[in-house]
């Protein structure tokens, strides 16, 4: 699985992108976020308030119940501020 981070999430996690192997028992966006939190102190801190974290799976917005698999491109970022 490819995981991308943007804006302050990128700064807090410390990388823009990482290639990870998603455990077989993690099947939803919510489960993936839990699992990512456990990867490091930086991940945990960056993802501590999920109300300010948006998730895209294969470049489409996703919710915590949506499915996710090891083939997906996942992105985590704050609420958008373009325009």
């Amino acid at each position: 699985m490819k995981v991308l981070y943007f804006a302050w999430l990128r700064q807090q996690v410390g990388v823009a992108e990482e290639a990870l192997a998603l455990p077989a028992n993690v099947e939803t966006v919510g489960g993936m976020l839990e699992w990512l939190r456990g990867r490091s102190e930086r991940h945990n801190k960056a993802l501590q308030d999920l109300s300010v974290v948006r998730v895209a799976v294969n470049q489409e917005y996703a919710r915590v119940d949506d499915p996710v698999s090891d083939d997906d491109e996942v992105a985590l970022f704050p609420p958008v501020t373009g325009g």
Partner: protein
Amino acid sequence: MIRVQREDFDVGLELDSLARDNHVIGGIASFIGTVRDIAGDRSVSAMTLEHYPGMTEKQLAKVEAEARARWPLEASLIIHRYGRLEPGDRIVLVAAASAHRQAALEACAFLIDWLKTKAPFWKLEEGDTGGTWVEARAEDDAAAARWSSDAATQE
């Protein structure tokens, strides 16, 4: 049409191209967003727009397609810049052309309102107090929300 680019754009040229040779068009509504030199009470000397290449284009295309499904448009346009910008610089241009004035005006407002809450861009402002990531505003969510469900039938 969707364009995501680092460089500036020529508003007159873009709006001319939009309507050229289509004499069904009776009105072209457009909105240009520019960099302000203050944000709240902080002074801003520059900003950097980060985005998510690929998803940005995909989401802007969806916003445009939604506008064209809701209003009878002859042409539409979204150009959004990324990279470092200074106060007064143009950030975004949206435009909608239609036989009917109200359709053009409403679609234009819709394009910018939806873009603001859907397109994956993030602003990092540079100012007196260093770099600050701009926070999403509740007003922007409210502005986008007024277009949901029943708004499509107001025309």
